[in-house]
């Protein structure tokens, strides 16, 4: 196996002419470093430029500016067939006129390997993806999941330096998606191959990646581990795109020593472990995840609220609680003491004091 190579993108930019909007950036100054053996996900809504970026890495599209480096080699000017990459397409792009065996063997034939070595390599990789015995089938005779595995086998059999995935699971049903993403992750780690994975599904991104780069309008707006993005989003966009969130308006009263004191309505809150800098008097928004909010019977210290709706979802209960003019989303475990308030009940809302992110009022 070839040693895993890192990937470096330097200010990749791709423009195109749009009939109505004029010149549009599909990708703008996208810079990213992927360590050898790491799996990084490009996550974003459709049209954010993640697929364009991936296709520039693959060599299917040329950047208007910027560089792509694989290992330490600048491949920006190379055609796709000279980059030694594996690409898994959204719709698999299996060759319909070739058998499973010939599909997988295609890249090896291009390398002019001897027939027995091809047969051995194909057999090995098909066994790896659990498709031994499918050699003589044609793609259209296979189920979606099986086609996905063939596409995967075809991409890894040539031992590419990097693997690129373009929404590979979006054509599968929900259960299969969950299973396949685990398999892809396991395979990627077993082969310790560098990979970039494009998806718009935040749960999939969180499940599969070492790191996530969130894209919006052609640029990477934040990158980090799933946890870091969830706990400390740098913008409202990231906060809302990853998980559900309450952005609670507040005013900084005092700051310093790792603590920030804020005012929410007429209620004061002392937050611990806040990394963001905040100045006294500044208007901010607290990033409060629904599961971090606790409810209690009316009375006592806290914000006053009214339960508007309650939805029972098996292991958890989701509330919408009116606080002043705003509505807070609250998620509690079904077995918790505060999981049984009925709509109309007046409650006291406890906001968390640790693990709360701060966003400036305009971000």
């Amino acid at each position, binding site marked *: 196996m070839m040693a895993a190579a890192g990937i470096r993108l330097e200010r990749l930019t791709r423009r195109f002419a749009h009939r109505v909007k004029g010149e549009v950036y599909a990708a703008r100054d996208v810079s990213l470093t992927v360590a050898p053996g790491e799996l990084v996900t490009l996550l974003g809504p459709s049209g954010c430029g993640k697929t364009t970026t991936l296709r520039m890495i693959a060599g*299917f599209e040329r950047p208007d500016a910027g560089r792509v480096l694989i290992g330490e080699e600048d491949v920006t000017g190379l055609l796709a067939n000279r980059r030694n990459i594996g690409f898994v397409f959204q719709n698999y*792009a299996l060759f319909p*006129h070739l058998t499973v065996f010939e599909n997988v063997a*295609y890249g090896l034939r291009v390398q002019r390997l001897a027939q027995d070595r091809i047969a051995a390599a194909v057999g090995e990789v098909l066994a790896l993806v659990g498709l031994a015995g499918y050699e003589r089938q*044609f793609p259209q005779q296979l189920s979606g999941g099986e086609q996905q595995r063939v596409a995967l086998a075809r991409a890894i059999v*040539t031992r590419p330096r990097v693997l690129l995935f373009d929404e590979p699971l979006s054509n599968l049903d929900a259960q299969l998606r969950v299973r396949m993403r685990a398999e892809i992750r396991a395979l990627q780690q077993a082969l310790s191959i560098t990979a970039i994975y494009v998806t718009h599904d935040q749960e999939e991104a969180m499940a599969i990646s070492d790191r996530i780069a969130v894209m919006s309008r052609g640029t990477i707006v934040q990158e980090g581990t799933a946890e870091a993005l969830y706990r400390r989003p740098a913008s409202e966009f990231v906060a809302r795109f990853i998980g559900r969130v309450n952005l609670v308006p507040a005013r900084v009263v005092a700051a310093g020593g790792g603590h920030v004191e804020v005012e929410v309505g007429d209620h004061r809150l002392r937050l611990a472990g806040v990394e963001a800098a905040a100045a006294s008097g500044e208007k901010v928004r607290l990033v409060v995840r629904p599961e971090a909010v606790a409810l209690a019977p009316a009375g006592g210290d806290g914000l006053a609220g009214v339960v508007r709706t309650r939805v029972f979802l098996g292991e958890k209960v989701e509330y919408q609680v009116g606080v002043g003019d705003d509505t807070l989303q609250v998620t509690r475990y079904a077995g918790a003491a505060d999981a049984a308030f009925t709509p109309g009940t007046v409650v006291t809302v406890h906001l968390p004091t640790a693990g709360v992110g701060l966003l400036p009022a305009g971000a």
Partner: protein
Amino acid sequence: MLVLWALLALFVVFPLGALVARAFFDGGRFAPGALLAIARDPNHLRAFGNSLLLGALVGVAGTALGFLFAFTAVRVGLPRGWSAVLDAAALLPLVSPPFTTAIAIIFSFGPRGLITWHLFGLKGFTVYGLGSTFAAETLTYFPLAYLTLKPVLAALDPNVEDMAFSLGSSRRRVFRTVTLPLTVPGLGNAFLLVFAASLADFATPLILAGNDFPVLPTQAYLQITGLFDFKGGAVLSFVLLVPAFVVFVLQRAWVGRRYYVTIGGKTGAETAVKSVAGWARWPLLAGCLAVAAVIGWFYALLAYASVVVALGANHAWTWVHYRVIFTEGLKAIRDTLVIAGLGMPLGGVYGILLGYLVARKAFAGRRAMEVVSMVNYALPGTIVGIAYLIAFNDPPLVLTGTALILVACYVFRYSPTGIRTTVALLQQIDPGLEEASQSLGAGSARTFWRITLPLLVPAFFAGLGVVFIRSMTAISATIFLISINWTLITVRILENMTELSLGPAAAFSMLVVAIVFVVMAALSRLLRRFRTPGRVMVAGLLGG
């Protein structure tokens, strides 16, 4: 690419230019006088009016008949066998020489017709004129409408009709307010196709229209073959060019607007078509079967006429007509097969090459190439034939009388089917396939040979099949291009008709139908052996 452009320039642009030049210029001077003279000649004016009238009538009737067939075939829930019968009835006229219906009509209703003379004892009944021409062309060209409308109707999601039912509409209302409006673009397209086919058809009017109902293509033909007046022929066909061009533009506009059928994203639940009441299917089917019976009768009559001494006069069995065509007519048969055999592979290769370039490669003049490649296909055959005749009759390029001119005419006139099939197929073939090949290290040459080309095999066979079938059956363009050295079966049929030796004409027609059916069967067999996405209709051919 340069070679393709050179060929297109030589065999499409140059002849058309020569035609226009001949119509407008006289000895190097711009002289539109001839055109004006035509405009003033009441005879030609009448021919022009007649052509439009005939085209419009045939267009309307052919579209109506095509709709009846298509609606019955896909919306009524017939058992499989019945729609196969409808398909066969519609296919037969498409793959026959263009005047088989005309011959059969003369056999039935002519001066000695089986029906007019023998059955009813009518004497002095004239079959010739608008009525019979109209009937013959309608029966010949309604399959075009059928083939256009069938996929449109088949793609209409019954869920949409269910929706209308659920809102309380009656069946009739659903048909009037949902089904019909959704088919309108298809109907428009079908009408234009049939109209154009009728406008271009000169074989049927030549036989059936008679002296009192002149139409433009026959006038142009007579001008050239009867009077050797190239200029007059050029002018007349230029006049014909105008409505043909209008149709071409209108049709592109229709097709450009796309059918409505693609509105839905995911397909809805499968649901049976309920828009036709149970009892209503029988009259619909009966209507179709009546038409099919007429077509069947015509062909049976033709078969019968080919094995009796003289239909209508002497009904003794004989093989003499077949002996005639295989002795005197052998040269025509051999020539036709040689030319069709030469044109077939050339047309197939040319079709996928041009289709691939136009669909997948970005280059300057791509649209222009596509349009130019369609020109000979869209023009009435008479125009193409006369244009070739004028262009290649004099130096620098004298091709008249050679096999090359016939092959070139067929290839450039009938390959557009192959081109379109290639383009359509390429649109279905995910570009990701080529990218996948690339990402696995294959260069563009390898990708083309190993991935793209194998997937285009159906288009290759479709293109090649059409060129072959048309080489066997077409006459309108090539009648101007035959010579003593190279002649064609279709032309021999026409000669036989004018000499009133109907027996050999019938025998020739049967032979052509038989050959075409064998080739079509072989092709569809071949096609079935290739696994490919998308299906290809070998029969999507334009008459003429």
